């Protein structure tokens, strides 16, 4: 029996593996964008207004910067391989929303594949798993793949 796929954290992204999106917020009153919807700071011009509506953010963007994790991050990051396999992290500019969102690059992407300004798109991958479930997170993948 295959394991159940669950989001590693509820409410930050859709679980459509073919066509995933980050779930952001938008102020109904002035159109300000937020990600995550509930955990990013408020526009003081509308600070008494809590009516953020869910919106799906752009599914692709351009690499604003990138780096690597050469050493295992601290808990609560779950290390899934022994020895630890370094991974690439990208900060991606979503042009319509004009905000930058970080995520890991999909496994197999190397630093040599990366360039600032290149296009990447959103993907889903397994962050870690236990006996019954796979816990899913968003990552970025090179545009033109997948």
């Amino acid at each position, binding site marked *: 029996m295959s394991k159940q796929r669950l989001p590693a954290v509820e409410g930050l992204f859709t679980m459509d593996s073919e066509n995933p999106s980050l779930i952001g917020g938008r102020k109904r009153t*002035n159109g300000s964008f937020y990600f995550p919807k509930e955990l990013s700071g408020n526009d003081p011009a509308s600070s008494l207004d809590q009516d953020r509506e869910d919106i799906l953010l752009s599914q692709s963007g351009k690499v604003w910067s990138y*780096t690597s994790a050469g*050493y295992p991050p601290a808990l609560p990051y779950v290390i899934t391989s022994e020895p630890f396999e370094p991974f690439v992290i990208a900060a991606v500019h979503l042009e319509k929303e004009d905000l930058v969102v970080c995520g890991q690059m999909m496994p197999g992407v190397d630093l040599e594949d990366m360039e600032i300004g290149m296009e990447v798109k959103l993907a889903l991958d397994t962050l870690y798993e236990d006996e019954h479930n796979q816990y899913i997170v968003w990552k970025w993948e090179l545009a033109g793949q997948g």
Partner: protein
Amino acid sequence: MTVGEIAILGVGMHPWGKFADKSFVDLGVDAATKAMEDADINWNDIQFVSGANTVRNGYPGWVSASTFANALGFQGSQLASSYAACASGATALSIARAQILSGVCDVALVVGADQVPKGMFAPVPGERPDDVDWLRFHLIGLSNPAYFGLFARRRMALYGDTQDDFAAVKVKNSQHGSKNPNARFTKTFTAEDVKASPVVADPLRLLEICTTSDGGAALVVSSLDFARKKGIKNPIRVSGISTIGPTYPNAIIDMPYFASDSWAKSGYEGHTFKNEIAQHAYTEAGITPADLDFAEVYDLSSAYELDWYEHIGLCEPGQARKLLHDGDTSIGGRIPVNPSGGLGAFGEAIPAQAIAQVCELTWQLRGEAGERQVNGANVGMSINYGMFGHGSSVIARR
């Protein structure tokens, strides 16, 4: 608006390092005792203790002023304990200044110390999916060095900086730090040493990333009147303190957030809190960057030091490496930066670090910095920021 000044009567530090057999209380009491000796002030005469908290040492760390006062011997002084991440020390000093300038007290002790486990900083334990500091580790493995790597790589794309430029910062600061008896790392590193160390967060290597340290630092501060009555005609003065928060929207992503604010409405993709912190301190002190003789900046990474040159207005964006390679920011140069050796030579002891920066300002302004003395040190700035959005900057002058 310029604000009133206070006097720095005494400074003290417990050297930085790893001290498994000492508690943060031991380190703080040691620094406080040295600061009071330096100021020629008795503990019984301290009217206010402003503690910078540590969040990694249990309850005593959350009520640090009380903890330190108890260890020194409760004598009924007023107490305040504050936490603002890496800005805690500047926050504690700003509270002491407010007490002094409002006449609530004449003389105060500001103290912070930390004793932490080895390795990278980790978030507070537990499962907290509504805490961005927890989420960034859990979902992305976005550790502190990853942010430093993102900023460094961004500099390379925007300004053409290279890994050699970043290594040169480490080399410079290790030369400065080799002359500082309070520094943890006093070895002088070469560019080859840096290149031989492993990549932690591309493009940055192990020797370029600040480690975690134990340490303690303390200041005795007073009203100018109190200093004069003690016979000190021209005390070192605190002329400006910045503890501001950001203005929305912060377009440059910053710890611990894993997304920036949206700049769709403001239209300014370069807006960052870090450009505003120093400006407030300059305004309070009534000076401009051209008036500075030296600066202590928060070099959490080698590349980060270059960011600070630009954030505090030493040069235009993109010109930092020219300043570095021209020797301007070395001791003996036009505007030495991190004459103490900076975090590269110290590592970071969170609540003590901003206080340690002010200790260095004071020693430099007094002309007591020995082999690392900056010539003509009349005005100095320290700067850093606490994650989640706490500004921290102090301007001191003689």
